[in-house]
């Protein structure tokens, strides 16, 4: 197949390789003969490449038109004149359908669903929800009440009313302290009180001694380590999640002198959940009283716990798997469970042991029985049965009952030991760890339930979904849709979507952003944390609005700013809470110009058009880039100091090799040159006017003139290629498989419906959930 002949290297796949997407062409084609004659020698008879000639396979995402133009201009390499425009078109049409296009590739190498274990998030969520089944309450059988803040109870000794005599409530015996006889209740948004020498209500309560309690729950949006801190000169105790009397997270009940003490403790929390919170505070004869409740979220800075993270409703305790797992394989661009290791097996074992211990410690509560109850044995058996069914998402066959339940109750010396073993065995079972084991078997409603829960929640089905499956009501598309719609509103879906945006917008990079403090002294960690909050709130508002319009993510001409951000970005607002601030539509366009991203895609002192351009190309415009063949580091000192950043990058990527990809990257990156290294609008760079103008050649081979971010988002928002990039990212994140594993046309169908549904993201999620769930 490979005839040898000396050739110079093929010139166009230089620094980056561009690939774009389009529609299929007819199957048989006269171009085949021309291809075999002119091209096969170097590219192979099926475009597979030829060693020592052009060894890269002819695979990509260009349209036929773009391919034809490329062939006509450059092929064959030694004699481009050999191919006429008509030949080139025929060749392009032939190879496009024979092997070049993604559709052809999907047909030739059909993707299969890969067997995958639960990801770390899926494991943590599943275990939490299995235990939650036995506790229920808000967050399980209904959403947590949206009322923000904490319920406060102030207890103290009532001051005498005018003209009345004070009552001494000190008991005759025992501790010489007055007994409280007055209670005041209200909702407090934030816990930060400085009463000085007074009581919380100086008209009503004596100042000498009082006790306060703040109750509700705290919402953790992200998974990770949270630090909680209480500051007070008085006595205090803080409980998070576990509110057993003796299990306070922070116990500062006994004071030590007049100075304010700060006590802090860290706790691992799973994102998307509300955890019960209880804070007690008491003053006894100290000269002053104050109390503050702080936290530091995984990517935040230390702050008073804001009202939007507090709920007045109390939730039940959640089982938190805090075992450290080795990171999931993300080599495909999204975390998935296609590899296992000894470290992973050990983490699973540790987590199974920790869960078994939690179960045994709380067994009577979970099994709804008592130590001496005559039917305790029965209740424990029932608990074990429900537990295993919940973990495996299906009723147990007789065999399974024997293996997972009966044999342990027979062998173990005590029923507690039996339960402990059952929990460990179940959580180590492949039937739990590999949820798509049954993918090839005949599937039923329980499989559908399990897939739906994994897709939307990264977890097991809740009670309602399990009941729907048991009733055989997850068969039709309408039935699945109905359940999916209900589940969409759950905070677990929101948490999963946060994960998606984290990945799509490459927020991990943004978390580490730092700037030269000499040039940007006000770009503090606090400001960075605010930027993150601003972006995430914006995304949540758009996604969970009725329109849920993908285009608004790109085209919005406003930013959410609070006081600190408003000041920094030149649009003063007042107040801690974030508010919508309108901008000139030329200056701001959705996520693309959000300063959190602009700052992360920049150097510590300067903008970086290449980082911005690559991000836009891959994640927003939707074209894939191969890694550069030669990595070139940008060294500012190598350039004439008079140059603008645009001029430097232009010089650096001037060579023909680079420009193959940089002809795409640079104009996109340059169009954001009006934003400096921290995402502020500028009109000058290095004392010269900024030039953001450029031309972008699209996947369809057309030319788009760019004068700034608005031109990019207007092009992308209605372009199938941009849609597909978004859909593919979302599909990967939700299902953790390739779209084509669910049929060659999956992506095309999703894109078609997405466009028809006014780019509604929630509808898209439902559509993807249907793809994942529908019984085959």
């Amino acid at each position, binding site marked *: 197949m490979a005839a040898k002949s000396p050739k110079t290297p093929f010139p166009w796949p230089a620094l980056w390789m561009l690939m774009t997407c389009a529609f299929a062409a007819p199957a048989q084609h006269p171009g085949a003969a021309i291809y075999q004659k002119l091209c096969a020698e170097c590219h192979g008879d099926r475009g597979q490449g030829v060693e020592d000639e052009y060894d890269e396979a002819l695979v990509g995402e260009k349209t036929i038109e773009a391919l034809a133009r490329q062939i006509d201009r450059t092929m064959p390499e030694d004699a481009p004149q050999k191919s006429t425009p008509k030949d080139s078109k025929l060749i392009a049409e032939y190879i496009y359908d024979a092997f070049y296009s993604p559709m052809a590739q999907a047909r030739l190498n059909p993707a299969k669903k890969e067997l995958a274990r639960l990801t770390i998030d899926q494991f943590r969520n599943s275990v939490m929800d299995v235990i939650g089944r036995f506790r229920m309450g808000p967050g399980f059988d209904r959403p947590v009440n949206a009322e923000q803040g904490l319920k406060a109870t102030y207890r103290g000794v009532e001051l005498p009313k005018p003209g009345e005599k004070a009552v001494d409530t000190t008991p005759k015996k025992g501790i010489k302290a007055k007994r409280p006889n007055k209670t005041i209740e209200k909702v407090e948004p934030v816990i930060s009180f400085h009463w000085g020498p007074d009581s919380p209500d100086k008209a009503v309560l004596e100042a000498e001694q009082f006790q306060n309690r703040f109750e509700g729950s705290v919402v953790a949006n992200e998974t990770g380590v949270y630090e909680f801190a209480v500051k007070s000169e008085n006595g205090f105790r803080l409980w998070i999640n576990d509110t057993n009397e003796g299990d306070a997270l922070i116990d500062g009940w006994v004071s*030590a002198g007049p100075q304010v003490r700060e006590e802090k403790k860290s706790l691992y929390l799973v994102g998307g959940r509300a955890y019960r919170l209880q804070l007690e505070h008491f003053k006894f004869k100290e000269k002053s009283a104050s109390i503050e409740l702080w936290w530091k979220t995984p990517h935040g800075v230390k702050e008073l716990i804001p009202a939007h993270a507090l709920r007045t409703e109390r939730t039940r305790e959640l089982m938190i798997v805090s075992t450290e797992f080795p990171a999931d394989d993300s080599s495909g661009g999204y975390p998935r469970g296609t590899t296992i290791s000894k470290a992973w097996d050990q983490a699973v074992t540790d987590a199974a042991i920790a869960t078994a211990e939690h179960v045994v410690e709380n067994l009577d509560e979970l099994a709804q029985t008592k*130590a*001496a109850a005559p039917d305790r044995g029965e209740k424990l058996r029932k608990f074990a049965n429900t537990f295993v069914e919940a973990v495996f998402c299906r009723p147990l066959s007789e065999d399974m009952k024997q293996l997972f339940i009966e044999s342990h109750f027979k062998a173990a010396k005590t029923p507690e030991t039996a339960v402990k073993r059952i929990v460990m065995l179940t959580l180590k079972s492949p039937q739990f760890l590999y949820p798509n084991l049954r993918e090839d078997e005949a599937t039923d409603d329980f499989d559908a339930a399990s897939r739906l829960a994994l897709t939307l929640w990264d977890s097991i089905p809740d009670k309602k979904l399990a009941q729907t499956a048991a009733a055989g009501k997850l068969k039709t598309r309408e039935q699945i849709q109905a359940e999916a719609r209900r589940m969409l509103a759950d905070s677990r879906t929101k948490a999963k979507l946060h994960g998606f945006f984290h990945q799509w917008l490459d927020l991990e990079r943004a978390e580490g952003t730092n700037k030269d403090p000499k040039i940007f002294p006000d770009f503090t960690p606090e400001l960075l944390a605010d930027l993150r909050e601003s972006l995430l709130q914006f995304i949540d508002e758009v996604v969970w609005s009725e329109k849920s319009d993908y285009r608004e993510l790109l085209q919005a001409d406003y930013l959410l700013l609070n006081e600190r951000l408003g000041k920094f970005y030149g649009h003063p607002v007042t107040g801690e809470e974030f508010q919508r601030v309108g901008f000139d539509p030329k200056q701001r366009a959705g996520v693309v110009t959000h300063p959190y991203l602009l700052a992360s895609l920049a150097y510590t002192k300067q903008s970086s058009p290449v980082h911005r351009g690559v991000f836009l190309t891959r994640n927003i415009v939707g074209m894939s880039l191969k890694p550069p063949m030669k990595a070139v580091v940008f060294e500012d000192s190598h350039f004439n100091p008079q140059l603008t950043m645009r001029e430097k990058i232009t010089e650096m990527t001037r060579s023909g090799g680079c420009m193959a990809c940089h002809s795409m990257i640079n104009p996109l990156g340059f169009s954001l040159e009006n934003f400096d290294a921290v995402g502020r609008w500028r009109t000058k760079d290095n004392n010269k006017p900024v030039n953001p103008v450029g031309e972008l050649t699209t996947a369809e081979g057309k030319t788009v003139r760019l004068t700034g971010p608005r031109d990019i988002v207007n092009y992308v928002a209605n372009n199938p290629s941009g849609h597909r990039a978004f859909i593919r990212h979302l599909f990967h994140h939700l299902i953790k498989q390739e779209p084509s594993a669910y049929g060659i046309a999956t992506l095309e169908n999703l894109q078609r419906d997405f466009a028809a549904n006014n780019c509604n993201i929630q509808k898209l999620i439902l559509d993807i959930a249907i793809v994942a769930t529908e019984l085959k």
Partner: protein
Amino acid sequence: MKHLDRRQFLRDLGISAGALPFLTGLPSLTGAPAPQKRQRLVIMFSPNGTLPNEFWPDQEGAEFSFKSILKPLEPFKKQMLILHGIANKVTGDGDSHMRGMSCLLTCDELLKGNIMGGGGNPAGWASNISIDQEIKNFLQSRKETKTRFGSLEFGVAVPERADPWTRMSYAGGNQPIAPIDDPHQILKKVYGKMKDKESLVSILDDVREDLKRVSSKLSARDKALLDQHMTLVRGLEQDLAEADKQGKLLHPVPAVDPSIELVNDNTPQISRIQIDLLVNSLSNDMARVATLQYMRSVGMAQMRWLGVEEGHHSLSHDPDDKKDSYEKLMKINTWFAGEFAYMAKRLAETPEPAGEGSMLDNTLLVWTNELGKGNTHTLDNIPYVMVGGGFGFKMGRSLKFDKAAHNRLWMSVAHAMGHDLKTFGKKELCEGGALNLAA
């Protein structure tokens, strides 16, 4: 009340495997190799004072006879010191109970704070390290006396609240240490990894079966992942078997009834379980220092197992001539003496692992209280009874001191363990130096 037989809880499971790094890689479960001579210190606390007339022998010296409360200790007469006349002379903030408790082992004034008692000013935590922790730090600083934990703090029926009435051990000023009164928590802390291993071993066969069964239905490509999983399970099994060979515990871990509830009425059973665990952890050389705290100062335990319905602290306030209360207090204090005697007996029955004689020959047990007498709240003549050996004290005596500060007694104990403290706690109270118990 549910009848609970201690034998139900304590079963020898005969776990053979010991010191193993099977999950998180502890270098060794028990720590250092056994030195030539081991000295151990155990301090036991019971609250609310005693009845002096039923407690202190009338005689001084070797020829003394037992009053009723100390009768359970008669078998140990030759290994005993009864120390009358020791006083807690620490003054300052806090009521007598608070100072009695939180200065008992710390011997210095309490910090200022917000905890109000039955009198005096409100106070905070102790300002000094406690003697058990001081000695533990000393032993841990030396290679030949270092153990895995250094010290273990046991509790029995200690209420779930942290204040100066519930804490006697302090890692330093303002740093109270909570005693562990749940046997399961002790098991988890001391033998946790081993218990995990035992559970794990019991399910691995089933895990393998499960894998095999599921794997047989898979395509070759998917099977590869599960084959790899199977290899991991086998690896874990081998690790566990390897760990089994590495080390065996000298004394097997007692099994604890997983269903025992931590409620008042189960106190007698819990007490014995805790003592067994304490002796077991000393015999496996997990620690050389231990404390065992019953209830708390001002504790209101209702000892229905003795036929006493009233709370202990209320009874202790009644006048001596209230006969019924007096009888009940006698029962209560005698019961504590019985628990102390049980601990001595368990140690006397256990051969010294690294030498001759019994463990009791190398262990000093000290039983004390936060008050001298309940209804006067005196901090004079606080009960101090020692049982054991190996400290160079001349045992088998009833001694009478004249209001000797308890700082000096704890200095004697520290000196006997090789820790030459010049003072301990409040300096002024150390005048006269360590009490001479050797002759």
